[in-house]
Every structure is written in C-alpha cells, then in structure tokens.
C-alpha cells in the first residue's frame, strides 16, 4: 500500500479530522481562508464521483430537465484544439475573494462569509438572477420549480438562486466537503481541502511548493479553488 492511498483510506474512514469544528457561539473567522486544490492529472474523464456525492449530500434530486435542474458541481472536459491534448476537471463555485456575484447582488443576499465561503442568503434573495449573469464560472443555478427532499442542513426552494456552499455545514462540523471526501474514498484523491491561510496546512504547503493555476485568474476575482495540470 502506497503512502498516498493509505492516507486516503484514513480520510475516507473519517478517523481523523483535517479541520477542527467551529466553536459553538463563535462566528466564522477571517483568519481562515478555506480553499481547494484540485489535481486534474488524477481526475479521470469519465469519473463523476464528486458530482454524484454532491447530488446526494445536497439532496439535488432534480426533475430530469438538464437545462433548468441545479448543478452545484460539474465535470468539464477541456481540449486544446491546437494540440489535441484533453483533460477533465470538476468546476464548482470558486469561492472568490472578490466575487462578482456578491458585488452585483442588489439586496446583499449573495454574500461572502468571513472565512471566504461564498453563499446565497436565500432569506433575502429575490430571484433576479443578476449574480448568474455576473459569475464567470457559471457556478450558480436558479431553482426553476418547487423542490422536495431538502436536507435539513441545506434549505433550497423555488424562485431563489443556489450554488456550491463548499459544504459549509460539514466544514463547521469539522468534516470535509462531500466531493473531497468521496474523491478520496472512491476515486484517486484529486481534491485537497484546507485553510490557505494556515501555513502548516497541507494545502498551504502544496500551493507554496508547486505550480498551481486558477480558472480565469485574469479576471482578478481571486478564486479560492486552485488547479494543477490545466
């Protein structure tokens, strides 16, 4: 058993916590910056483990209408037309430091938590969809019809905009996002989650030591999700 797969086994068993749970009564702290590092070289084209895990975690049953059903995370296949080189990677809300969706939201429903997680406060979302116009990553979906089977930790309903929460309910509980956990357990462990501001965290060490890129970094929104191999 290699070093890598043993770590994944431990991760998947839930035996260790990579992050400590939020302290009861304490707000999310700006001393943290949650982020992801995704190694596309370990991401198989036909693998949808992360997508499936997200759907079941978030209760995204859908209505079998691909154009209007919500997708928090999707697999994008990218091909270089000049060279023919192709690879596949998951794209979800990039949890930007300067999110366009938060800038454009008229009511402040689209918001960034102190620890960098970008969320939609569905209590004051009026369903104008301007955030969907502004997001460069196509990360958000609009609830086009009545929803059922919601999870207690993820309320969602008709007429409001939704998207990846980075599994904020799990993070505050000291657990990994569902996609990261599933990728480690059932796929090749291409996703690494952690606190980018904590220099001792694995993700901070990796991004300091290795070359990483962000999707559309030129737009200057400073996503919290980094990729390798694109």
């Amino acid at each position, binding site marked *: 058993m290699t070093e890598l797969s043993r770590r994944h086994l431990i991760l998947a068993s839930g035996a260790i916590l990579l992050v400590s749970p*939020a302290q*009861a*009564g*304490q*707000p*999310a702290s700006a001393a943290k910056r949650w982020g992801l590092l995704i190694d596309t070289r370990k991401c198989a084209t036909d693998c949808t483990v992360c997508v499936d895990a997200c759907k*079941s975690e978030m209760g995204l049953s859908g209505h079998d209408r691909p154009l209007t059903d919500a997708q928090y995370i999707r697999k994008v296949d990218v091909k270089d037309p000049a060279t023919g080189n192709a690879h596949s990677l998951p794209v979800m809300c990039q949890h930007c430091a300067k999110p366009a969706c938060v800038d454009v939201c008229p009511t402040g429903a689209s*918001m960034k*938590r*102190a*620890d960098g*997680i970008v*969320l939609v*406060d*569905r*209590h004051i979302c009026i369903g104008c969809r301007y955030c969907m116009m502004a997001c460069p990553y196509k990360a958000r979906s609009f609830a086009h019809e009545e*929803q059922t089977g*919601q*999870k*207690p*930790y993820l*309320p*969602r*309903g*008709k007429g*409001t905009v939704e998207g990846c929460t980075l599994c*904020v309910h799990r993070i*505050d509980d000291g657990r990994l996002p569902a996609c990261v956990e599933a990728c480690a357990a059932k796929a090749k462990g291409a996703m690494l989650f952690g606190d980018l501001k904590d220099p001792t965290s694995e993700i901070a060490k990796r991004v300091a030591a290795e070359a990483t890129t962000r999707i559309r970094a030129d737009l200057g929104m400073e996503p919290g999700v980094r990729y390798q191999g694109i």
Partner: protein
Amino acid sequence: MGGLLLMLLLVTLPALAADLPSLPKPKGEACIAANDVMRRDHPDMLKHQRDDTMRLGIRGGKASLKDCVACHSTADTAGKPVPINAEGQFCQSCHAYAAVKPDCFECHATTPTVKEASR
C-alpha cells in the same frame, strides 16, 4: 362605541368558536423557553438566529429551526417521518389556527435527518 364592540365581538366570534389546535407531543422534555414566550417570540428568535448562522457562521444557537423540526415532528405507524407542515402537525395546526402562513418550508426540510442507508 357599543356598536363597535358588538362588531368586534361578531368578527372575533368565529375565532373563539374554532377548535384549539391539538399539538402532537414533542420528543424532548422541555422547550428552549416557556410556552407563552415561544408562542409570541419564536418568529423573532428564528429570524435572529438565521442571520447569525447564515451570515456570520455562528453555530450551536438554541433557536434552531432544525432542532424545532427534530423535536416536534412525528412519525407515522410505519416509522416514516411526517412533514411538520402537514395537516395536524405541530407547525401547521397552530399556524392554521392563527391564520398565518409561514414561509419557512418553501425551502427548509420538514422532516428531521434520517440515517441514510447508503452510508
């Protein structure tokens, strides 16, 4: 003045005549506050905590809708949880009596978390 009183009486009579809501028994022993406080203040409590939890990330507050549902929901004879906004259930029966339509369950889960068989 007398006419006004009579009028008020006539208008309120149907409410007085209506049956009081019969609430299913909660699972827990005591609520987070006295009944009269809960009856009056639960919307404000929920609203206050929703902003704390959602926007600031403060977890573990006591006025959690999730906990309300967990404690006050019931299960049918087959052990399947009944939505808390279904006819005769905790939230619905009282809100129907008070003729106030809560918006919570457009989005929020109406049943507590059930252990998923797949895990």
